[in-house]
Each structure stands twice: as C-alpha cells, then as structure tokens.
C-alpha cells in the first residue's frame, strides 16, 4: 500500500468513528429531553407551546455535539491528501477518536438539564424564561469538553507533520485522541447532572435563581477539571510531535 492509500483509509475510519460515537450521546440526550417533555405535557396539556419550544431549543443545544462530529467527519473526508506525510493517517485516526468519544458524554449532559427544564416549566409556568436561560447556560457549559475534543481534532487535522514514518509520533497522535476522547465523557455527564439539579431546584424555589446559577457554575468548573487535565495532556502530546 502507498502512503496516499493509508491516509485515505485512515480518513474514512476516522470519519466513521467521529460521527458514529458522537451520534450516541446526542441521540440519548435528545431522547431524554423529549421524554421529559411528554411527561410534563401529560399533566399540563395547556402549556404545549412553552414546553415544545423549550424542548426544541434544548434538543438543538444537545445536538451540537453530534454536529461537531459530523463536521469533523466531513473535514476528514473532503480534505485534500496529496503530498502529505504518512503520519497524517495516524493524526486523522486521533482526530476521529477525540471528537467522537468526547461527544458521547456532552450530548447526554446537555440533554439532562433540557429535560428537567421542560418538567420545571410544567411545575412553574411563571418562571419559564428564567428556567430556559438557566438551562441554556447549563447545557452550554456541559458541552465544554466536546469543544476541547473539537479543538484537538482540528489541531490534529491541520498540523504540519514531518515526512516519513516513526512509531512514537504516530502513537502520540492517536494517544492525544484517546486522551481527550475518554477524558471528555465523564465531565460532560457530570456537568449535565449539576445543571439538571440546578434547573430542578429553581423550578421548586424560583427565588434562588442567582444563588443556583453561581453554585452550578462553581460545581461544573470543579467537575470539569479532569477534562482540563485531559486537554493539557492531549495538547502536550500533539505539540510534542
């Protein structure tokens, strides 16, 4: 096999991993949101407009992780590969792993607060604006690690690599992908849980919205720290080549 063939093979493999894994999380998160919206509608059928609107906005945010996976897959499939080093093949596999795996947790994590917001609007229709705002902040922050995965994937895609094959740089690029990918799963779900409980607490006691937002952000920042360790290690691995 020639170098070009290896790169082509890695790009299709990476694209499959990227969009395939990313689809898991986004779909679970969106399904959870829709389920909770159904539950809320079953006892508040007259709020159908508000709840459907919140459900769609929440699902669109949860979909972001899946869309990132699709974008990386398309960039992998349609990038020009002539005259590139054989190492590019390994970088492409790393990019697919980084984006795909890290999107699993973030899709689920962004769906959790969205579902609870639908439920909360059923409980407290008067504060639907505050609940939607808190949900958007919480889901947005829960996606941070998928964004770090996206960053690492873009770095791996566009890195200028030395010609020729060596096993250490090759493995460090796949390692960067694995590191950011697996490191992104847990923080995504954990931050989603923090946001979910904050939204549900505001739905119980709307007066605490300011305190809940700050506490949620501090908790999310702490639970994101393992994702940031992964980001640092992945950056070190990518930049060491």
């Amino acid at each position, binding site marked *: 096999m020639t170098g070009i063939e290896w790169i082509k093979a890695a790009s299709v493999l990476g694209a499959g991993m990227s969009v395939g894994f990313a689809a898991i999380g986004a779909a679970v998160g969106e399904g959870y949101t829709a389920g909770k919206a159904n539950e809320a509608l079953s006892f508040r059928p007259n709020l159908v407009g508000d709840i459907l609107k919140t459900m769609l906005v929440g699902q669109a945010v949860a979909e972001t992780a899946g869309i990132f996976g699709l974008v990386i897959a398309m960039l992998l499939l349609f990038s020009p590969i002539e005259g590139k080093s054989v190492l590019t093949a390994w970088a492409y596999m790393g990019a697919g792993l980084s984006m795909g795996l890290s999107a699993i947790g973030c899709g689920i994590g962004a769906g959790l607060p969205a579902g609870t917001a639908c439920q909360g609007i059923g409980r407290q229709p008067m504060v639907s604006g505050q609940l939607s705002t808190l949900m958007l902040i919480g889901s947005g922050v829960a996606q941070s690690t998928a964004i770090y995965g996206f960053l690492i994937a873009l770095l791996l895609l566009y890195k200028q690599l030395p010609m020729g094959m060596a096993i250490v740089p090759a493995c460090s690029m796949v390692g960067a992908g694995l590191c950011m990918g697996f490191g992104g799963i847990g923080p995504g779900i954990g931050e989603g849980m923090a946001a979910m409980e904050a939204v549900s607490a505001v739905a119980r006691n709307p007066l605490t919205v*300011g305190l809940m937002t700050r506490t949620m952000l501090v908790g999310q920042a702490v639970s994101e720290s393992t994702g940031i360790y992964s980001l640092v290690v992945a950056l070190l691995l990518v930049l060491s080549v």
Partner: protein
Amino acid sequence: MEELGRIHQLIIPFFGHDLTFNLEVIIMTWIVISILLLFGFLASSKKGVIPGPLQVVGELLVAQLFALTEDALGEELGKKYAPLICALFMFLVLSNWIGIVPMMHEPTKDLNTPLSLGLLGFFISHYLGIKTKGIKAYLKAYVDPFFFMMPLNVIGEVAKVVSISFRLFGNIMGGSIIILVISYLVYNLILPPFLNAFFGVFVGAIQAFVFTMLTLVYIAVQVK
C-alpha cells in the same frame, strides 16, 4: 469542494514580519456594524408614545437584556454593563444571521471574531473582579482550596475563553460546512433553504444568546 476552509487574505510585509488581514471577515464585520448603527438610528429617530415597528423591536431587546443583566449583576453594576451585553448580543445575532443572505458570510465563521469577543469578556470580568473585591480577595480565589491547585485554576480560567469562543466558532463554521457539503451533494436542490433556516436562524440565535449569557455569568461569578 475547493471552498472548504479557504480564506481571502491580504498579506502586507511590515519590517520583516507579515501582517495578515482576513479581508472578507473585516468587510462583513463592517457591514454588520453599519446595519446595527442604521437600525439604532432609525429606531430612535422618530420616538413616540405610539411606537413605530423598529422602536418596538429596539425597546423589546433593550428591556429584556437590561432585565437579564440586572438579575445577574444587581441594580448598580447592571445599569452600567447592560449596554455592553446589549451590544454583544445584537452584534452576534446579526453576525450569525447574515450568512443566510446569498454572497454574505458570517464574521463569526472565522475564529478571530469569537476569540476576540471571548478575550473581551475575560478581561472585563477579571478587571471587575479586582475592582469590586480588591486584589487580595481576587488572588485568594486562585489558591482555593489549597496552594497546589493554583496552576489548574489558572488553566481553568484560560479554558473558559477557549470553550466560549470555540463553541460559537464551531457551531457557525460547522453549520456553514454542513450547508456547503450537503448543497454540493444534492446539487443545490430543495434542502439548502431548510438547512439555512436551522443552522443560520435557529442555531445562530441560540448560540448568540448562550455566548452573551455566559459572558454575563462569568462577570457575575467574578463580582460576587
């Protein structure tokens, strides 16, 4: 497919360095700014008790965003920083929506725009944090819970800028790449308008709001 990731650049040699300007982004940013100025002028020129349509839109935006800012920052700081939040939101929404007009490109599609806005929020929030809490209490937040955590707290603050700007950039650039690739695959039949409506109008508005709210919340965390 050659358009994927291509940028029009103007490179000027400057004392041995190359200054690079992304012309398209600069021009589109100026177009967005002039539309906003025109909107502001038209909405406020003929003020009346019975408002015109533009005045209604302007009042709605300003009232909602002022209320959100005052909720987060309190009465006094809220009044001071609400114009910033209003301007940020209106600029981002228009930047994200302008891509649905043929031949126009979103300025937020280029990483430079979201990153500079993220840095703006970063500097404002830390400046306000030092100003309201004092330098001692501000620095003490970094050695929380114990001293060895300091490097990670600093990295965490920088990572906030990365995540806030890449979120906007990834969504808008991702949307435009998906529209480009799918339009190419279906020979520009039927699908592209729906994709533009979803990625341009819907996702664009949500991401502009998320960016604005996160900037506001990061400021609020530093202040309190």
